[in-house]
């Protein structure tokens, strides 16, 4: 794909190219799997419900909505909003783990539970038995909103971090990005949710305001977030984070995490565009958020209706005909 992203996006829009094969046909010079995957993600964000989904453009994780493991089995991580669960959900997860003899049940860093070692043809039944939506643990999308307890129980909490965390995860679940996006919300400056090393973090100040942070990381690369702004209400926090997420989605390079994107743009420019609305894009960002949220469908519902032949099939056995001598 010889074009840079803004030019590519403009051409795609101008020509109404809504599938990966259409883009490759009209604008591509060759076909490789990384370009296909990047295009699929970009087109889905661009066209929303009008996007033409071609599964052959996607890596296996995004075809079967689970993370492939070294032995060809899969990992299943159901959604646990804000890291808060219920006795009923835990019991269901436990019962599924027993029923399918799941080899490993593990807590993730994102405050949820991972069922590892699930066979591809068991995925639809596992999802049905869980009755919980996909946690998107396997792909370049919003992952989790990690929280610490906050004012609901914590004696130091200055604001309700779990409520904000849950609201953020419910609003932005299923949003795809050029790379994975991890959020965190802490209920006071002690920052027990480690929000200062997240793609987008929120920390409640001593006075109970929400300090919004961006561009952090704590994996192979470690970076402390930059401060974007402070807001007073939960609604404002959700709105400004949404604007940043769309800005990141539409301007970052494929595979570029926020810890590279934010310093590349410069936090002053990011603040100018997002907080001061210097480019007048605020309304566009808000519209994009609503469009993307409206297009969200839990991918695990494909258990009832696979979208391509053999999607969840185990290898089919063919007996060889007996040869006559």
């Amino acid at each position, binding site marked *: 794909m010889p074009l840079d992203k803004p030019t590519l996006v403009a051409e795609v829009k101008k020509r109404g190219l809504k599938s990966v094969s259409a883009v490759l046909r009209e604008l591509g010079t060759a076909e490789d*799997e990384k370009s296909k995957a990047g295009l699929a993600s970009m087109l889905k964000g661009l066209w929303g419900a009008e996007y033409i989904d071609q*599964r052959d453009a996607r*890596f296996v994780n995004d075809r079967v909505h689970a993370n*492939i493991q070294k032995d*060809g089995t899969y990992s299943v991580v159901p959604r646990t909003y804000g890291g808060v669960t219920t006795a009923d959900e835990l019991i269901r997860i436990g019962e599924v783990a027993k029923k399918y003899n799941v080899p490993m049940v593990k807590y993730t860093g994102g405050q949820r539970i991972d069922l590892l070692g699930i066979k*591809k043809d068991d995925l639809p039944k596992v999802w049905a038995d869980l009755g919980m939506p996909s946690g998107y643990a396997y792909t370049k999308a919003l992952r989790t909103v990690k929280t610490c307890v906050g004012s609901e129980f914590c004696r130091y909490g200055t604001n309700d971090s779990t409520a904000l965390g849950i609201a953020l995860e419910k609003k932005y679940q299923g949003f795809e990005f050029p790379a994975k996006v991890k959020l965190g919300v802490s209920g006071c400056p002690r920052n027990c949710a480690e929000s200062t090393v997240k793609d987008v973090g929120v920390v409640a100040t001593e006075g109970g305001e929400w300090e919004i942070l961006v561009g952090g990381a704590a994996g192979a690369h470690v970076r402390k977030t930059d401060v974007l702004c402070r807001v007073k209400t939960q609604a404002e926090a959700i709105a400004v984070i949404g604007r940043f997420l769309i800005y990141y989605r539409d301007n970052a390079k494929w595979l570029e995490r926020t810890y590279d994107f934010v310093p590349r743009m410069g936090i002053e420019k990011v603040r100018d565009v997002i907080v001061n609305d210097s480019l007048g894009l605020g309304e566009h960002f808000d519209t994009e958020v609503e469009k993307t949220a409206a297009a969200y469908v839990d991918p695990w519902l494909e258990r009832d209706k696979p979208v391509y032949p*053999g*999607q969840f099939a185990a*290898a*089919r056995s063919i007996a060889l005909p007996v040869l006559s001598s």
Partner: protein
Amino acid sequence: MTALEEAVEYATVCTLDDLPTGLGRAFVIGSHRVAIFRTRTGKVFAVADKCPHKGGPLSDGMLAGEQVVCPMHAFRFDAAGNCDQPSVCAVRTYPVEVEDRLVRVGVPV
């Protein structure tokens, strides 16, 4: 090892409709675990469903043109089975015939 060097028998494995466009699908033909791919341009070809690198399921891979990309570490195999990585063995290929939308694959006798 190519099919020309050994006697091969063909088994009818599936129909074209059983093969997703631009992707692979796994079959066990006799004792052979085989990944059958169907490109967007209509070519159907088959390789062993086990990556020579670390045994990954090639049937779960992607296609880059007519190259199979292993889902484990993205090693690529062309239509002759050769790998793009210098120290990795070729993957076995199986001859395929398509007639009246039926897909037949040849396995060694």
